[in-house]
């Protein structure tokens, strides 16, 4: 279970997150929606401690971290409980697909090389890249790179996988293959938090949808409820753009 309590984050004088409370149950898939600048990516990065929140508590499983008094060790153990899939993939560019997947296993989890390799190959086969084990990221398409990124996150068996707009940098043609992989692992009961602009995807994969704007959670609920019958005016306004056709004609 993941529990965020009063997460705040400021960049200079601008408060991007104004006290976020969120609970994610084990096995749940949570989609975070919202316009640009609403703080959704910052929130995700705070959970992985890639941004340091100015206040609040983060609980992942049985580990709780108080952002005001977080030491190096606390930060490292928090990070080991989550894994991130980045918008720009961020694969280690000097390592092959397989080395990318097993790097964390070998360095952080201290798994033996042979065992790590075996697990890495399994995972890459699972995301449909069994034939690209020795390819470098520069030799892979965006969709393939992102699938390696997902395999890298899965390898660590974290308590939660955080997806930061996993398909935003992709060609429209390649979005499908990545969403299919995410959909498949969602069915396996892995806890996930996904920041996305893919409304249709959020609607049918997520068990819980959060709508953020201006650094606060405006509304949250199950997808049928939030998409079908939003209560807040801001949510309605935001969703309208995705549910109705453009009103002008060319």
């Amino acid at each position: 279970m993941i529990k965020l309590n009063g997460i705040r984050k400021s960049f200079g004088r601008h408060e991007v997150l104004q006290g976020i409370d969120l609970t994610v149950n084990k096995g749940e898939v949570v989609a975070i929606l919202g316009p640009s600048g609403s703080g959704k990516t910052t929130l995700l990065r705070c959970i992985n401690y890639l941004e340091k929140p100015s206040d609040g508590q983060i609980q992942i499983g049985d580990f709780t971290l108080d952002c005001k008094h977080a030491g190096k060790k606390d930060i490292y153990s928090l990070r080991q409980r989550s894994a991130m899939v980045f918008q720009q993939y961020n694969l280690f560019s000097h390592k092959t697909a397989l080395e990318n997947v097993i790097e964390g296993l070998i360095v952080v989890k201290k798994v033996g090389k042979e065992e790590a390799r075996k697990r890495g190959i399994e995972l890459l086969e699972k995301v449909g890249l069994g034939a690209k084990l020795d390819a470098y990221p520069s030799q892979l398409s965006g969709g393939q790179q992102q699938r390696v990124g997902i395999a890298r996150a899965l390898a660590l068996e974290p308590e939660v996988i955080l997806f930061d707009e996993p398909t935003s940098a992709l060609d429209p043609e390649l979005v499908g293959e990545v969403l299919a992989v995410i959909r498949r692992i969602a069915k396996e009961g892995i806890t996930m938090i996904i920041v996305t602009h893919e409304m249709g995807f959020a609607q049918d994969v997520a068990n819980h949808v959060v709508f953020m704007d201006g650094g606060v959670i405006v509304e949250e609920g199950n997808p049928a409820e939030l998409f079908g019958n939003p209560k807040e005016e801001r949510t309605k306004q935001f969703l309208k753009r995705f549910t109705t056709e453009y009103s002008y004609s060319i």
Partner: protein
Amino acid sequence: MKLDPSFIWTAFLQLWSAVPTTLYITVVSVSVGFVIGIITALARIYRIPVLSQLSSGYVTFIRGTPMLTHLLLIYFGLPMLVDGLSAHYGLGWNSAKIPMIGFAYISFSITAGAYLSEVVRSGLLAVDRGQMEAAWSVGMTTPQALRRIVFPQALAASLPNLSNSVIGMLHGSTLAFTVSVVDLNAKAQIVASTNWKFFESYVAAALIFWGLTILIERITGLIERRIRVYSKGGVA
């Protein structure tokens, strides 16, 4: 005076004995300078208090003054310092015991350190921040991430500059003759003045320098091809 081509070969053979000295000076100054460069570059990138200001000051001062000046400053300043300390603490040191080449090692290491600091810094800055974040997100500590992810990529990115600096230090090592170190160039002068064939000896020295430089370029090329396989691109 007429050119004596056959003496070029004679000088060439005699100059070989000084090649190790030139190479020692180059290798020592680049190696020590590389360590200084990494420390000062990291201090500046991570804005470590005090250390980063000291590093910036060091880099601007050294890059702002000629290499020959560094050598002379060390040559005249270091003995004062050593003898002063020795007298003050009764250490029994004697600056006269410092071998001449020691001055070259120390001063050229300081010179190389400043230039390599910039080389290392540009290499580190060339690595996308996302690489560090990805390393953190898989649970690595900052030192692990630097060692396994950032440094190898920074090295690949800075290799052309690095080889440039090595060549610069190889050629700069000729200044060591001012403190009576017999490097390649000083040896050429000796060979020249004992035979009264200046042009021929310096041609021989130039050829050896050129050969060594080509060697450095070749070695860099080989390393570059090996460590940059990953950026070849294309579909596997």
